[in-house]
Protein backbone atom coordinates (compact mmCIF):
# COMPACT_ATOMS: atom_id res chain seq x y z
CA UNK A 1 0.00 0.00 0.00
CA UNK A 2 1.43 3.39 -0.85
CA UNK A 3 2.30 5.39 2.20
CA UNK A 4 2.45 9.12 2.38
CA UNK A 5 5.72 10.51 3.55
CA UNK A 6 6.81 13.81 4.97
CA UNK A 7 8.13 14.87 1.57
CA UNK A 8 5.02 13.86 -0.40
CA UNK A 9 2.83 16.86 -1.10
CA UNK A 10 -0.71 16.55 0.24
CA UNK A 11 -3.31 16.87 -2.50
CA UNK A 12 -5.49 19.95 -2.53
CA UNK A 13 -8.93 19.66 -0.98
CA UNK A 14 -11.71 20.55 -3.39
CA UNK A 15 -13.31 23.33 -1.36
CA UNK A 16 -16.34 23.57 -3.65
CA UNK A 17 -17.06 19.88 -3.07
CA UNK A 18 -16.46 20.26 0.66
CA UNK A 19 -18.86 23.20 0.89
CA UNK A 20 -21.49 21.32 -1.12
CA UNK A 21 -21.13 18.30 1.20
CA UNK A 22 -21.48 20.49 4.29
CA UNK A 23 -24.52 22.21 2.79
CA UNK A 24 -26.12 18.84 2.06
CA UNK A 25 -25.48 17.51 5.55
CA UNK A 26 -26.73 20.73 7.12
CA UNK A 27 -29.98 20.30 5.22
CA UNK A 28 -30.25 16.62 6.13
CA UNK A 29 -29.52 17.14 9.82
CA UNK A 30 -31.93 20.07 9.95
CA UNK A 31 -34.62 17.82 8.44
CA UNK A 32 -33.93 14.93 10.82
CA UNK A 33 -33.69 17.07 13.96
CA UNK A 34 -36.72 19.10 12.90
CA UNK A 35 -38.73 15.91 12.52
CA UNK A 36 -37.54 14.61 15.89
CA UNK A 37 -38.09 17.95 17.64
CA UNK A 38 -41.62 18.29 16.33
CA UNK A 39 -42.59 14.72 17.17
CA UNK A 40 -41.03 14.99 20.64
CA UNK A 41 -43.02 18.07 21.63
CA UNK A 42 -46.16 16.66 20.04
CA UNK A 43 -45.79 13.38 21.96
CA UNK A 44 -44.94 15.04 25.28
CA UNK A 45 -47.97 17.32 24.95
CA UNK A 46 -50.35 14.42 24.38
CA UNK A 47 -48.71 12.39 27.14
CA UNK A 48 -49.26 15.30 29.50
CA UNK A 49 -52.88 15.61 28.39
CA UNK A 50 -53.58 11.94 28.95
CA UNK A 51 -52.03 11.60 32.38
CA UNK A 52 -55.34 12.55 34.00
CA UNK A 53 -53.85 15.23 36.24
CA UNK A 54 -56.05 18.06 37.52
CA UNK A 55 -53.90 20.67 35.75
CA UNK A 56 -52.46 18.99 32.65
CA UNK A 57 -49.21 20.52 31.53
CA UNK A 58 -49.05 23.00 34.39
CA UNK A 59 -45.35 23.51 33.74
CA UNK A 60 -45.23 22.47 30.09
CA UNK A 61 -47.55 25.39 29.36
CA UNK A 62 -44.65 27.70 30.23
CA UNK A 63 -43.18 26.86 26.84
CA UNK A 64 -45.88 29.12 25.45
CA UNK A 65 -43.80 32.05 26.72
CA UNK A 66 -41.21 31.20 24.07
CA UNK A 67 -43.36 29.43 21.45
CA UNK A 68 -46.33 31.68 20.58
CA UNK A 69 -49.66 29.85 20.50
CA UNK A 70 -48.38 26.74 22.25
CA UNK A 71 -50.26 25.26 25.20
CA UNK A 72 -51.09 21.79 26.46
CA UNK A 73 -54.23 21.03 24.46
CA UNK A 74 -55.00 18.99 21.32
CA UNK A 75 -54.72 22.12 19.17
CA UNK A 76 -51.60 23.23 21.07
CA UNK A 77 -49.98 19.87 20.32
CA UNK A 78 -50.15 20.64 16.59
CA UNK A 79 -48.72 24.10 17.17
CA UNK A 80 -46.05 22.40 19.27
CA UNK A 81 -45.35 20.04 16.37
CA UNK A 82 -44.73 23.08 14.19
CA UNK A 83 -42.56 24.93 16.71
CA UNK A 84 -40.68 21.78 17.69
CA UNK A 85 -39.88 21.19 14.03
CA UNK A 86 -38.76 24.80 13.51
CA UNK A 87 -36.59 24.92 16.63
CA UNK A 88 -35.24 21.40 16.00
CA UNK A 89 -34.32 22.28 12.42
CA UNK A 90 -32.63 25.53 13.45
CA UNK A 91 -30.65 23.80 16.19
CA UNK A 92 -29.69 20.96 13.83
CA UNK A 93 -28.55 23.38 11.12
CA UNK A 94 -26.65 25.61 13.53
CA UNK A 95 -25.08 22.60 15.22
CA UNK A 96 -23.81 21.09 11.97
CA UNK A 97 -22.53 24.44 10.70
CA UNK A 98 -20.35 24.77 13.80
CA UNK A 99 -19.35 21.10 13.89
CA UNK A 100 -18.47 21.12 10.16
CA UNK A 101 -15.66 23.54 10.80
CA UNK A 102 -13.56 20.52 11.77
CA UNK A 103 -14.32 18.46 8.66
CA UNK A 104 -11.56 20.12 6.64
CA UNK A 105 -9.10 19.12 9.36
CA UNK A 106 -10.47 15.58 9.40
CA UNK A 107 -10.05 15.32 5.63
CA UNK A 108 -6.51 16.71 5.84
CA UNK A 109 -5.64 14.16 8.51
CA UNK A 110 -7.02 11.36 6.37
CA UNK A 111 -4.94 12.48 3.43
CA UNK A 112 -1.79 12.46 5.52
CA UNK A 113 -2.42 8.83 6.49
CA UNK A 114 -1.68 5.94 4.17
CA UNK A 115 -5.17 4.48 3.90
CA UNK A 116 -6.57 2.74 0.87
CA UNK A 117 -9.65 4.01 -0.91
CA UNK A 118 -11.43 0.83 0.27
CA UNK A 119 -11.79 2.63 3.60
CA UNK A 120 -14.22 4.97 1.93
CA UNK A 121 -16.80 2.24 1.44
CA UNK A 122 -16.93 1.25 5.08
CA UNK A 123 -16.29 4.56 6.78
CA UNK A 124 -17.98 5.08 10.11
CA UNK A 125 -18.37 8.57 11.46
CA UNK A 126 -16.01 9.57 14.24
CA UNK A 127 -17.38 12.03 16.74
CA UNK A 128 -15.00 14.78 17.74
CA UNK A 129 -16.08 15.43 21.32
CA UNK A 130 -14.24 18.75 21.40
CA UNK A 131 -16.02 20.12 18.32
CA UNK A 132 -19.31 18.65 19.44
CA UNK A 133 -18.89 20.30 22.84
CA UNK A 134 -18.08 23.66 21.29
CA UNK A 135 -21.06 23.43 18.93
CA UNK A 136 -23.66 22.12 21.37
CA UNK A 137 -22.29 24.11 24.30
CA UNK A 138 -22.52 27.31 22.27
CA UNK A 139 -26.09 26.54 21.19
CA UNK A 140 -27.28 25.78 24.72
CA UNK A 141 -25.46 28.80 26.16
CA UNK A 142 -26.93 31.10 23.51
CA UNK A 143 -30.33 29.52 24.14
CA UNK A 144 -30.07 30.32 27.86
CA UNK A 145 -28.91 33.88 27.09
CA UNK A 146 -31.79 34.51 24.69
CA UNK A 147 -34.50 32.90 26.81
CA UNK A 148 -33.38 34.65 30.03
CA UNK A 149 -33.11 38.04 28.39
CA UNK A 150 -36.45 37.49 26.70
CA UNK A 151 -37.97 37.17 30.18
CA UNK A 152 -36.11 40.33 31.26
CA UNK A 153 -37.30 42.15 28.12
CA UNK A 154 -40.91 41.10 28.79
CA UNK A 155 -40.64 42.57 32.26
CA UNK A 156 -41.52 39.26 33.93
CA UNK A 157 -38.08 38.48 35.33
CA UNK A 158 -39.23 38.88 38.93
CA UNK A 159 -42.11 36.45 38.38
CA UNK A 160 -39.99 33.82 36.61
CA UNK A 161 -39.65 31.49 39.56
CA UNK A 162 -39.24 28.42 37.38
CA UNK A 163 -36.43 29.85 35.30
CA UNK A 164 -34.74 30.94 38.51
CA UNK A 165 -34.51 27.27 39.51
CA UNK A 166 -31.55 26.96 37.15
CA UNK A 167 -29.53 28.53 39.94
CA UNK A 168 -29.74 25.17 41.72
CA UNK A 169 -27.30 23.84 39.14
CA UNK A 170 -25.74 27.06 37.89
CA UNK A 171 -24.44 29.02 40.90
CA UNK A 172 -24.68 32.76 40.25
CA UNK A 173 -27.41 32.40 37.64
CA UNK A 174 -30.46 34.63 38.01
CA UNK A 175 -33.17 35.87 35.68
CA UNK A 176 -31.24 39.01 34.80
CA UNK A 177 -28.84 40.05 32.07
CA UNK A 178 -25.79 39.64 34.31
CA UNK A 179 -27.08 36.31 35.64
CA UNK A 180 -27.69 35.05 32.12
CA UNK A 181 -24.03 35.53 31.21
CA UNK A 182 -22.84 33.69 34.33
CA UNK A 183 -25.32 30.87 33.62
CA UNK A 184 -24.35 30.73 29.96
CA UNK A 185 -20.68 30.21 30.81
CA UNK A 186 -21.49 27.52 33.37
CA UNK A 187 -23.92 25.65 31.15
CA UNK A 188 -21.43 25.81 28.30
CA UNK A 189 -18.85 24.05 30.49
CA UNK A 190 -21.35 21.39 31.62
CA UNK A 191 -22.51 20.65 28.07
CA UNK A 192 -18.92 20.65 26.82
CA UNK A 193 -17.92 18.03 29.40
CA UNK A 194 -20.95 15.88 28.60
CA UNK A 195 -20.07 16.05 24.92
CA UNK A 196 -16.53 14.93 25.64
CA UNK A 197 -18.02 11.93 27.50
CA UNK A 198 -20.44 11.28 24.64
CA UNK A 199 -17.71 11.38 21.98
CA UNK A 200 -15.41 9.17 24.02
CA UNK A 201 -18.09 6.51 24.63
CA UNK A 202 -19.26 6.56 21.02
CA UNK A 203 -15.76 6.27 19.51
CA UNK A 204 -14.74 3.52 21.95
CA UNK A 205 -17.80 1.42 21.18
CA UNK A 206 -17.49 2.02 17.44
CA UNK A 207 -13.91 0.75 17.56
CA UNK A 208 -14.86 -2.22 19.77
CA UNK A 209 -17.53 -3.18 17.24
CA UNK A 210 -14.89 -3.42 14.55
CA UNK A 211 -15.47 -0.07 12.96
CA UNK A 212 -12.76 2.34 11.99
CA UNK A 213 -14.14 5.75 12.81
CA UNK A 214 -12.87 8.39 10.37
Amino acid at each position, binding site marked *: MPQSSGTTP*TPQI*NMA*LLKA*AIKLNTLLLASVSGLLGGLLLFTITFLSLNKGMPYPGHYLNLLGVFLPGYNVSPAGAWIGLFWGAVVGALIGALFYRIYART*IETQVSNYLRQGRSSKDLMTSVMKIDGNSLGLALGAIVAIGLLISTNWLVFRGTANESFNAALFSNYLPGYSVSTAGSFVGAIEIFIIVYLLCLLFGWV*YNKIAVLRG*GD*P*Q
Partner: protein
Amino acid sequence: MKTNMDADKAVLMAAFAKFDVVALAIALGAVLATSLFLATIFLVLKGADPGTDVGNHLRLIGVYLPGYSVSWSGALIGAAYALGLGAVMGFILGVLWNMTHYIYVALIVIRTTWVNLMAD
Protein backbone atom coordinates in the same frame (compact mmCIF):
# COMPACT_ATOMS: atom_id res chain seq x y z
CA MET B 1 1.06 9.06 -3.50
CA LYS B 2 -2.34 10.45 -2.85
CA THR B 3 -4.03 12.27 -5.69
CA ASN B 4 -6.70 14.92 -5.90
CA MET B 5 -9.12 12.07 -6.59
CA ASP B 6 -8.24 10.73 -3.13
CA ALA B 7 -8.86 14.17 -1.72
CA ASP B 8 -12.33 14.22 -3.29
CA LYS B 9 -13.01 10.74 -1.93
CA ALA B 10 -11.92 11.86 1.52
CA VAL B 11 -14.34 14.78 1.38
CA LEU B 12 -17.16 12.46 0.32
CA MET B 13 -16.17 10.03 3.07
CA ALA B 14 -16.45 12.78 5.65
CA ALA B 15 -19.81 13.79 4.24
CA PHE B 16 -21.33 10.34 3.85
CA ALA B 17 -19.77 8.47 6.76
CA LYS B 18 -22.51 6.60 8.55
CA PHE B 19 -23.23 6.54 12.24
CA ASP B 20 -22.54 3.35 14.16
CA VAL B 21 -26.15 3.15 15.33
CA VAL B 22 -25.45 0.87 18.30
CA ALA B 23 -22.58 3.04 19.52
CA LEU B 24 -24.70 6.17 19.12
CA ALA B 25 -27.58 4.62 21.05
CA ILE B 26 -25.36 3.50 23.92
CA ALA B 27 -23.43 6.78 24.05
CA LEU B 28 -26.55 8.95 24.09
CA GLY B 29 -28.17 6.69 26.67
CA ALA B 30 -25.05 6.82 28.84
CA VAL B 31 -24.86 10.61 28.72
CA LEU B 32 -28.55 11.12 29.50
CA ALA B 33 -28.38 8.57 32.32
CA THR B 34 -25.30 10.27 33.79
CA SER B 35 -26.93 13.69 33.50
CA LEU B 36 -30.17 12.71 35.24
CA PHE B 37 -28.32 10.72 37.90
CA LEU B 38 -26.00 13.64 38.73
CA ALA B 39 -28.83 16.21 38.60
CA THR B 40 -30.85 14.13 41.08
CA ILE B 41 -28.00 13.32 43.41
CA PHE B 42 -26.89 16.94 43.43
CA LEU B 43 -30.27 17.98 44.81
CA VAL B 44 -30.33 15.10 47.30
CA LEU B 45 -26.93 16.08 48.66
CA LYS B 46 -27.78 19.77 48.67
CA GLY B 47 -30.92 19.15 50.67
CA ALA B 48 -34.13 21.15 50.81
CA ASP B 49 -34.82 24.65 52.03
CA PRO B 50 -36.60 24.73 55.43
CA GLY B 51 -40.26 23.81 55.08
CA THR B 52 -39.95 22.43 51.57
CA ASP B 53 -39.34 19.03 49.99
CA VAL B 54 -36.21 18.12 48.07
CA GLY B 55 -36.50 18.65 44.31
CA ASN B 56 -40.05 19.94 44.14
CA HIS B 57 -39.76 20.57 40.44
CA LEU B 58 -37.32 17.91 39.30
CA ARG B 59 -39.53 15.22 40.76
CA LEU B 60 -42.19 16.18 38.18
CA ILE B 61 -40.16 14.05 35.78
CA GLY B 62 -41.91 11.24 37.63
CA VAL B 63 -45.05 12.22 35.70
CA TYR B 64 -43.37 10.77 32.63
CA LEU B 65 -41.10 8.25 34.33
CA PRO B 66 -43.14 6.23 36.87
CA GLY B 67 -41.09 5.37 39.95
CA TYR B 68 -38.72 8.28 39.61
CA SER B 69 -38.20 10.51 42.64
CA VAL B 70 -35.53 12.86 43.94
CA SER B 71 -33.77 10.29 46.12
CA TRP B 72 -30.88 7.85 45.83
CA SER B 73 -33.13 5.04 44.62
CA GLY B 74 -35.00 7.46 42.34
CA ALA B 75 -31.68 8.56 40.83
CA LEU B 76 -30.93 4.96 39.86
CA ILE B 77 -34.43 4.41 38.48
CA GLY B 78 -34.21 7.69 36.55
CA ALA B 79 -30.79 6.74 35.19
CA ALA B 80 -32.20 3.44 33.95
CA TYR B 81 -35.07 5.24 32.23
CA ALA B 82 -32.73 7.85 30.74
CA LEU B 83 -30.44 5.10 29.48
CA GLY B 84 -33.36 3.45 27.68
CA LEU B 85 -34.83 6.69 26.34
CA GLY B 86 -31.43 7.96 25.22
CA ALA B 87 -30.73 4.67 23.50
CA VAL B 88 -34.03 4.85 21.63
CA MET B 89 -33.39 8.47 20.64
CA GLY B 90 -29.84 7.65 19.54
CA PHE B 91 -31.06 4.68 17.55
CA ILE B 92 -33.73 6.75 15.78
CA LEU B 93 -31.29 9.59 15.13
CA GLY B 94 -28.66 7.20 13.72
CA VAL B 95 -31.12 5.32 11.55
CA LEU B 96 -32.65 8.53 10.18
CA TRP B 97 -29.23 10.04 9.50
CA ASN B 98 -27.97 6.94 7.70
CA MET B 99 -31.25 6.47 5.85
CA THR B 100 -31.37 10.02 4.51
CA HIS B 101 -27.88 9.57 3.11
CA TYR B 102 -28.78 6.24 1.49
CA ILE B 103 -31.90 7.80 -0.02
CA TYR B 104 -29.92 10.77 -1.29
CA VAL B 105 -27.29 8.55 -2.90
CA ALA B 106 -30.01 6.33 -4.39
CA LEU B 107 -31.72 9.38 -5.90
CA ILE B 108 -28.45 10.53 -7.44
CA VAL B 109 -27.88 7.06 -8.96
CA ILE B 110 -31.46 6.90 -10.30
CA ARG B 111 -31.24 10.40 -11.72
CA THR B 112 -27.87 9.72 -13.37
CA THR B 113 -29.13 6.43 -14.82
CA TRP B 114 -32.23 8.17 -16.14
CA VAL B 115 -30.20 10.96 -17.74
CA ASN B 116 -27.88 8.40 -19.35
CA LEU B 117 -30.84 6.40 -20.66
CA MET B 118 -32.38 9.50 -22.18
CA ALA B 119 -29.07 10.44 -23.77
CA ASP B 120 -28.80 7.06 -25.54
